[in-house]
């Protein structure tokens, strides 16, 4: 039912269609395995997105990736971007950290409030606001030649 939403959300994190599709499968598998644990504290869709997110991070851990979460201390200069003329929004989204594109997806495509996003991402409201601001700031930087 929400496979498209999960696929889009997965894509916003992974930025790869094939991996996103695999992720959707795994999300549904996990969903069926843990269906009884759904307590109704959030909407069903939100719950599926939380599963997606948890799965993503558990995969990263299992692969021993160095998942450096972007936090308040992140300096924009840490993330090197190549300034290109006429860069598309898609390319720009590929250039920012997945933690940012994920938030942008939840906010702009899904229309979740900061509170709902903080629930999904298990972070504070302020953190969501700050990171979304940085995401837009970063996109603006990347796209600035276009504007």
């Amino acid at each position: 039912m929400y496979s498209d939403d999960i696929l889009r959300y997965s894509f916003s994190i992974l930025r790869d269609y094939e991996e996103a599709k695999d992720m959707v499968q795994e999300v549904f598998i996990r969903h069926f395995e843990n269906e009884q644990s759904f307590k109704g504290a959030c909407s069903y869709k939100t719950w599926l997105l939380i599963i997606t997110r948890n799965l993503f991070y558990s995969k990263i851990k299992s692969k021993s990736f160095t998942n450096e979460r972007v936090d308040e201390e992140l300096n924009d200069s840490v993330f090197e971007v190549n300034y290109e003329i006429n860069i598309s929004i898609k390319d720009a989204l590929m250039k920012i950290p997945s933690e940012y594109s994920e938030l942008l997806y939840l906010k702009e495509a899904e229309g979740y409030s900061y509170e709902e996003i903080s629930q999904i991402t298990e972070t504070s409201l302020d953190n969501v606001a700050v990171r979304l601001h940085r995401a837009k700031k970063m996109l603006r930087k990347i796209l600035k030649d276009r504007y």
Partner: protein
Amino acid sequence: MKHYDYEISLFVEDELPDEQITLLNMHLAGCKSCRQVLSDYMEIKNEVSKFYKNLPSDIQELNQSGLSTNFNRSIIKGIHKNSLNTEIKSFRRKKFFIPVSAAASFIIAVLAFWNLWHHDIQDTFKSGSTPAFQKDIEQTTSNKNTYSPHLYAAEDQTTRESTRALKDQVESIKRLKTDSLDNNYVLTVECFNEEIDKAIAAHKDRLKNTGYLVSFSRYSEFEDFNAVIDSALLKQNLQILN
């Protein structure tokens, strides 16, 4: 001069408190740079929204190009593959059982018929009369419920074999169910007796509701077929809709 970059970000998301909106508006009136930021953030918001919302159409394109054909189905398959992994492995080891058992039954039937024919030919040479199997056919045509001793003899032999095969088929219902997503599997149930035909016809309708493709043909007498298939379905906890 202080700029309101962060507040503008909140403002475009409708997350800026009302009391701060007034302050922001006052600032924007006199700050060209922040107006540009507002314009850019609005543009980014719209483009990001449009990009992600248009993703399903890209997915459809992918479907058309065959990259993700039967996407939802693959999800379901993935679920089954994971949760029923052991059963599927077991099924894969045995999936050739049904065609093999069907072939074995056919060979037994041919051999039985050949024995019967051979016996009748000998009778014909001995007595010079009409072959017994022809009489049987004539008799069967005139009275469908009457079988010749020869046919019974063959039937007894084939019945045992086919009963065993049928039991195995019925026992394999769970495995069929496991992979019935492909709708490739046909549960073939065969019988002779017209009474059993009727009983099976009733089951055919019931089995349809379980999602199986079921075909029936006359083959062997199997008195406790109803009980076997009922218990098999019950064992697998399948819903039978009457």
